[in-house]
Each structure stands twice: as C-alpha cells, then as structure tokens.
C-alpha cells in the first residue's frame, strides 16, 4: 500500500473524527439524540457484521442486546452498580451467553443457526415475562437518566464505544482472524481440512459480536431510562442489525456506518412524512438492496459509480 493511498484515508478520517468530536457543540439536543441512536445502530450493525464474516447470519442479536440492557439495568437497581461499569458487565454477560449459545448452535450450518438465534431472542422475552420477580416482567425496569441527563456525555461515551468497535474490526482485518473468518465463510469444509477449527472461530466471532451488542444494550437501557422485554428483545432490533450492513456493504468497516446514516435518514424522513412510515423502511430497503444491489452501497460505489470517473480502459 503506497503512501499516497495512506494519505487518502488518513485525511478524511481526521476530518471525520474532528467533526464527530465537535458535533455536540454545533447541533441542538434533537440532532444529538439522533446521532446517539445512529451511533448505537452503527455499533449493532458492525457487531453483526463481525459474525457475518464467518458466514453466520444471526437473526437474534436482540437477545444479546436485551441481555446487556437488562444486566446493566438490574445491576444498577439491585447493587447500585455505576452505569458505565454496568454496561461493561452487560457486555461481558452477553459474551458469556454467546459462548454457551455458540457452542450449542454454531456447529449447525447456515439457516439452522439463524433459526436458532431467532428462537433464542424470542425465548428470552417469554422467560422475562415469566419471571417478574427477578426481571421486572412486562413492567420493565427503570433507571435514572445517564450522566444526570447530560446528552453530550452520553454522546461521547457511545462514540468511544463505536471507536472501540471499529478498532477491533480493523484489528481483525489485519490479523490472521481475517483469513480464518473468510475461509470459513467461503468454504467451511475446506477450511477445516486446511487446519482451521471452524467452530472455535465462529464462536470467537460471536463473542466479539456479543460483547459490543451487549454494551450497546447496556448503554441503551441507561440512556433510555426505561426498558421492557418487548422492546429490547424485539425482532425489529435483530432485523436492523442485519439490514444495515447488507444495505451499506458486507464485511467492511464503512458499510455498517454508511448504511446507518442513510437508513436513519430515510427512517426519520418517513417518520415525519406519514405515520408509521418508518416501520416500512427496513423491509423496503432490504427488498430493494437484495434485488438491485446485492453488494450494498459500497459495492454499488465501487462497481458502478467509481468507474464512471475513471478514464476508459484503466482499472
């Protein structure tokens, strides 16, 4: 990789970081809230994409999200654990659950794993409703506003979490894990014969994915101050986790981020134009993407748009 290319990535990255750091100083509370929920979605989408790199399609990220959310909320309520510590605890508990779930289900291939993950998230809702004494049941759990309601601090916290998630993805891409994940995704049987313990690496990917998803859940519960099972274990969250990277571009760092920006914009636009409009956004986008741009926005950019600006005959 030449130095000119390195410049081409560091410069925009620097401008982007400066913009993100100064963002709370230039916008009002409403946009700050939008930014926080967008960054939350970016973390969820990036986390889902980490597992997807091993070829596994999780449709139950809401289960891990909800576990993180409930863990940190309940730890606060029962043991007055500080919120940020609670979020980390939520992340670790979600990771522990992913190890258990992963070893049970990641031996299954393809669609069977996906189905199990849906069942996992749905089962959690039922378990939560059946154990109101421990979990708060349908009434949910409430916590005081995060940082006393200081949105700016909340913004920086979730931004830091996103930075950590992106850094981890970057590390994966630069390490031997990238080879293992890609090999497993492309041909698990061959990967095994070449010395890759596919179950181990799939579980590892699931753990990393669960950690950030659980943290995001913990953040959500404190930021939102109130959680109920129907919301945090909702299939809608699981769907968002997969639609965003598919829309933005799979197995990339930028895909989930660009995907989120566009989807959130479309969602917000539809919300204000007609009632419940935002609820059709994900379905509509998923259908359009799968039909017309299977490699997502980044694929469209690289394959169709970028070549338009290049001289003929060069690649």
């Amino acid at each position, binding site marked *: 990789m030449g130095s000119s290319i390195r410049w081409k990535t560091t410069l925009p990255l620097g401008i982007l970081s400066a913009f993100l750091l100064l963002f709370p100083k230039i916008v009002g509370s409403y946009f700050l809230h939008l930014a926080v929920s967008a960054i939350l979605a970016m973390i969820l989408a990036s986390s889902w994409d980490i597992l997807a790199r091993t070829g596994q399609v999780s449709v139950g990220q809401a289960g891990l999200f909800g576990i993180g959310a409930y863990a940190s909320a309940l730890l606060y309520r029962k043991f007055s654990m500080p919120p940020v510590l609670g979020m980390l605890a939520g992340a670790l508990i979600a990771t522990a659950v992913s190890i258990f779930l992963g070893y049970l289900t990641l031996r299954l291939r393809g669609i069977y794993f996906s189905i199990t993950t849906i069942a996992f998230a749905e089962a959690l809702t039922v378990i939560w409703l059946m154990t109101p004494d421990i979990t708060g049941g349908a009434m949910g759990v409430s916590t005081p506003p995060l940082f006393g309601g200081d949105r700016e601090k909340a913004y920086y916290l979730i931004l830091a979490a996103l930075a950590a998630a992106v850094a981890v993805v970057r590390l994966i891409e630069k390490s031997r894990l990238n*080879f293992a994940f*890609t090999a497993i995704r492309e041909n698990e049987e*061959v990967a095994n*014969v070449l010395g890759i313990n*596919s179950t181990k690496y799939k579980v590892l990917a699931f753990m990393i994915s669960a950690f950030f998803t659980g943290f995001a859940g913990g953040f959500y519960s404190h930021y939102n101050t109130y959680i109920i099972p129907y919301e945090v274990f909702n299939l809608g969250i699981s769907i968002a986790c997969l639609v965003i990277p598919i829309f933005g571009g799979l197995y990339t760092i930028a895909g989930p981020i660009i995907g989120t920006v566009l989807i959130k914009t479309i969602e917000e636009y539809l919300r204000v134009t007609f009632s419940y409009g935002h609820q059709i956004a994900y379905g509509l986008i998923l259908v359009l993407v799968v039909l017309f741009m299977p490699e997502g926005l980044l694929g469209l950019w690289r394959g169709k748009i970028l070549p338009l600006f290049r001289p003929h005959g060069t690649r």
Partner: protein
Amino acid sequence: MRKDESPKMALLQVDRLTKHFGGLTAAHDVSFHVDSREIVSLIGPNGAGKTTIFNLISGVYRPNSGDIRLGGESIAGLRPYDICRKGVGRTFQIMQPFPKMTVLENVVTSALFGRTPKVSMKTAEGEAAELCRLVGLGDKLKAYPKSLTVPDQKRTEIARALAVRPKLLLLDEVMSGLTPTETDEAIRLVLKLREAGSTILLIEHVMKVVMGISDRVIVLHHGEKISEGPPSRVVDDPKVIEAYLGKLVNEEGGTAC
C-alpha cells in the same frame, strides 16, 4: 502378494478401514501403507472408494471401523483440522480455492492455520509466496481463482496443501482435465515435491501418470482393495484387468473418467 506390514515403520498405515453410508459400503476392510518419500497411487473405476479413503484419512469422514496411523500415531476419527496440523495436506477432486481470496491469500490461509507450531503472518506470507513460485504461480500471486486456468487452479490447490508442510500429501486427481503438456508439467512438479522430501498418495485416472511416477499402485474396486504392487505388476493382474483396465483397452487406451 506382499504383506502390508513393512519392516520399518510406515509413514501412513491404514488398517482394515471400513466406511458405510447407509446400506452402501464405500470402503471395506481396506489396508495399505505408504512409506516415507514414496509415491503411491490409488486407482480404480469410478465409485471404487478412492475419494472416500482420502476423506477418511483427512478426517472429513469418520471410519466405522479400522485404524489410520500417521507416523505410528492413530489419527482415525480426529477432526480434520487436527489431522491437518499433524501433517496431512490434501487437495480436492473438485477444485475449491476460496473465490474471494487471491492465490497468495489462499495459500497464506493454510500456512497460517495448518501448521504446528503456528507461524507469524509475515513468515506465512513469505512461505506462501515461495510455494506459489515452486508450483509455477509466481506471477499470479494477486490473481483471483476464477481468473485462473484449470491447471493454475490445481496449482493453487497444491500450493495450499503444501503450505501446511505435510508429512503426507494427498493429491486427488490433480492431473485430470489437463492437456498432455500440462500433465507433463504436473508430473515434473510431483517428482520435484518428492525430491524435496514429500510423501505422496495420489488418486489418479490418467494411466500415463500412474505408470510413470508411482512406486506402488493400490487398486480399489467396489470399496475393496483388489491388488497392490509396482505399476508393471498391477497392470498384469487379471483381477485388475477385469475390474478396470479391461475397459480401458476397449476404449483404445484413452483415459477413463
């Protein structure tokens, strides 16, 4: 006929290996051995159980009974990745390079994971590049498999199998579908590998290859071993002629597929 027990310890010792798929017996009571630095061919008509034997040795299937020992240590029933790290590299009959990886990345992958002790990314990359050159892909490191010709795809498979530094290399029909010139190149490559110290068990349909490079030939038919010995003796075995070579002669000595 010679006994399977060789005086010194064989690198690969297969003992009474049996594998059923439902009612079908794909391998029945198969025993043979491969000595260090030997080139042994596994031949037989389609459905004879050759690839099944490969799948059993490399751990893709678990045997119903029997034992497989590599350097004296039993590997029967181990997971494929463990067997690979113990020193078995293989190619696939239907070429399966990872399509979204370049030739070099394909080879790096097995260099990274197929070896014990583990090597660094840098070492893996260096060795992979060297292996690519060895098999004749030195100028195609950055190419994607789908842009390669059939022989080059096979080379990628061989380089990928070699990258695990196998004690035993299993080559599944690496010569089929090649032109005569390409076949000659492939034969030279296999001989070069042996010279470099590899032990090779290969499945082959191209008789020219089998006769030309094998120290010994093992003939399978309906999952059973029906003959074994030096190539010249095996071709004269009436059982072999009946099961396999007889057909070839009728087809004017072409390569049976």
